């Protein structure tokens, strides 16, 4: 493995944590009570190097208070499928088990973790803050370097929860006596900022490498960020005994990956990465710019810092999508900038899944769409106003032509009759189109008002039929009703009339002989209304397009044109009232039966 990135004072490899199944292939006692175990990881090709460490988990119940997983440093990798670890035999049951495993009894190996070269030429001071077993990789590292570069000041803060169980103390003392540029301090208990400050204060802008249990790394990271240590001078590694915490550390590893940082830091959109609890691990500069909070303010906090303004069900939906369904959530929400102003953002939140298919965190991107929304609102208002303004001249054209044709302004020259009638038909269609546009813009803006009431559906049908009858008579067609049971429904009576008008009007348009019948049927808690015609019908292949926006069937010979919005608007209305609309039956040349439903009252 080649180093993927170098940032001047650290060179390290980018790695991915993997889980391997391995069997013991050799056990050797190298000296008094010191054993070397070789694990065979085939058929996987490993990406491990000596000096890194791994966690070895024995997958069965062993009676050991520390559990069934331990960390070991890799001493060597004899070929690409084996790793060798060395440990001193102790009294723990875990180690006893490890030494008595049969080759077919597989263990789980998690890793690799931790590998750093202390570069030979660097003179940037380095402070290692290491907790517990984290000392193992530190020692591996040191042992692999020929010596600590005398120009480079290296400090070690070695934290242990129990004084007695601090291994490697002898080696550390030895290292110190051999290298005047190395010093260490052994701390019992939690690492405090004072400890860090004391060790690093005499060093000129040191870099920090933190390795240890999750809790330790998180708290040290918090101090370092708070005290303004720049991102490029920090490297973190976490490890923990439980698979749960191993999962949690995954996201932190990603955000510390140098390649990731390069790619994401200067991205155009606000990008934020959180762990599974929603704690922000990383935020790019676009995020900082958009929210008004510095990355330092955001890290360790949650996105509620600038959000949290939506209603309860919004967040419920969000978490269900990303956590339960492991899917990307896409939505629009209102945010509050640090300076108090509000803005609208389109947000996409996705779960981050690692190579073991576990969810390890979330990545969220946001786009400021405040301007976009404003333009949309203006557009809606414009369409609304324009549609309304159009009505005045349309009323005049339609009304006056009707009056001229009725002889109000004197006898009409027979040559003028047809063209004037054509103008009349056209203006009626234009009025219809403007109405549809207005309705559509209202629906899109969510401003269609529904006033629900209880009424007799039979009455509404009868009324509508009465109003439309003259149009049918003019065309020589029938418009009838049958079986109009007395039943009350719940809905907006005006909208129901509009839907009926639309369906009956469509039937009228597409029927040349026979007529249209309206009937109703009570089905469960709804009332179904049917509009059946003996018209030209709709071919099977065209039926799926009926209720979409601006859907118009190809006009064949004699097929009248429409705006294509009527059925779409009717569908919106039916749905909003708790019902639906559909094509019950139809085929080319065989007439059509449309139906819509409305809840019984």
């Amino acid at each position, binding site marked *: 493995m080649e180093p993927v990135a170098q940032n001047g004072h650290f060179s390290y490899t980018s790695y991915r944590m993997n889980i391997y199944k391995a069997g013991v292939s050799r056990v050797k006692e190298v000296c008094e009570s010191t054993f070397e175990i070789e694990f065979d990881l085939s058929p996987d090709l490993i990406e491990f190097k000596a000096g890194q460490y791994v966690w070895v988990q024995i997958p069965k119940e062993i009676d050991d208070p520390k559990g069934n997983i331990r960390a070991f440093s890799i001493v060597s990798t004899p070929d690409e499928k084996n790793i060798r670890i060395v440990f001193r035999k102790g009294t723990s049951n875990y180690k006893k088990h490890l030494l008595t495993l049969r080759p077919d009894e597989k263990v789980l190996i998690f890793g690799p973790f931790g590998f750093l070269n202390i570069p030979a030429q660097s003179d940037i001071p380095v402070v290692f803050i290491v907790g517990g077993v984290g000392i193992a990789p530190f020692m591996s590292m040191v042992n692999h370097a020929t010596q600590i570069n005398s120009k480079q000041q290296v400090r070690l803060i070695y934290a242990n929860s129990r004084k007695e169980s601090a291994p490697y103390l002898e080696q550390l003392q030895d290292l110190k006596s051999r290298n005047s540029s190395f010093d260490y301090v052994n701390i019992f208990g939690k690492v405090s900022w004072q400890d860090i400050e004391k060790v690093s204060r005499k060093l000129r802008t040191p870099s920090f490498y933190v390795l240890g249990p999750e809790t330790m790394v998180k708290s040290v990271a918090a101090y370092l960020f708070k005290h303004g240590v720049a991102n490029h001078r920090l490297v973190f590694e976490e490890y923990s005994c439980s698979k749960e915490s191993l999962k949690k550390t995954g996201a932190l590893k990603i955000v510390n990956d140098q390649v990731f940082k390069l790619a994401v830091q200067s991205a155009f959109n606000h990008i934020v990465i959180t762990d599974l609890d929603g704690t922000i691990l990383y935020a790019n500069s676009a995020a900082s710019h958009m929210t008004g909070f510095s990355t330092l303010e955001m890290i360790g906090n949650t996105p509620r810092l600038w959000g949290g303004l939506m209603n309860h069900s919004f967040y419920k939906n969000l978490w269900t999508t990303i956590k339960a369904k492991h899917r990307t959530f896409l939505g629009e929400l209102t945010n509050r900038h640090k300076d108090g102003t509000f803005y609208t953002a389109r947000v996409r939140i996705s779960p981050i899944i690692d190579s073991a298919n576990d969810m390890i965190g979330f990545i969220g991107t946001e786009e400021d769409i405040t301007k976009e929304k404003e333009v949309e609102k203006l557009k809606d208002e414009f369409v609304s106003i324009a549609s309304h303004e159009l009505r005045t001249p349309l009323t*005049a054209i339609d009304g*006056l032509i*009707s009056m001229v044709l009725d002889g109000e302004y004197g006898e009409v020259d027979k040559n003028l009759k047809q063209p004037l009638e054509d103008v009349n038909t056209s203006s009626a269609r234009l009025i219809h189109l403007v109405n549809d546009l207005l309705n559509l813009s209202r629906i899109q803006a969510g401003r269609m008002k529904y006033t629900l009431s209880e009424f007799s559906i039979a009455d509404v049908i009868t009324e509508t039929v009465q109003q439309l009858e003259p149009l049918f008579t003019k065309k020589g067609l029938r418009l009838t009703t049958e079986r109009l049971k007395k039943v009350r429904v719940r809905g907006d009576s005006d909208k129901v009339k509009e839907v009926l008008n639309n369906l009956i009007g469509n039937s009228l348009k597409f029927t040349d002989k026979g007529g249209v019948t309206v009937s109703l049927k009570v089905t469960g808690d709804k009332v179904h209304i049917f509009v059946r015609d003996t018209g030209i019908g709709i071919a099977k292949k065209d039926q799926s397009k009926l209720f979409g926006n601006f859907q118009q069937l190809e006009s064949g010979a004699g097929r009248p044109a429409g705006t294509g919005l009527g059925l779409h608007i009717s569908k919106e209305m039916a749905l909003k009232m708790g019902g639906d609309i559909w094509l019950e039956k139809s085929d080319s040349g065989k007439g059509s039966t449309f139906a819509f439903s409305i809840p019984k009252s």
Partner: protein
Amino acid sequence: MAKILLIEDDEILQAMYRKQLQSAGHQVTTAHDGRTGLDLAQSHHPDLVLLDVMLPGGLNGFDVLEQLKNDPKTKDIAVLILTNLETEEKVAKQIGASGYLVKVKTRPDDVIAKVTELLSKV
């Protein structure tokens, strides 16, 4: 045969409705705005008022309707709202309008039919 007050600010529509009403035999007085309309209602005692809603000059049709209904001298005059606003019928009826027609959806004969119907109820 009746006295009708038409309050409509669009010139062309005003002329159109006036012609329709005169053809049907009615006497028509017109106004372009609410203030003038209210004054004419007081002075001319019409049998029916045809009232647009979007009017210039600070008083809209609903303001005019309210004032007509609040004044004992004019409260019994039937008012037919003639507007292109579709959504205000219930409000208009609550304030006291006797009828509500959407201009763009009502052909001339239908306007006359409604006028006749309302006059017969007086």
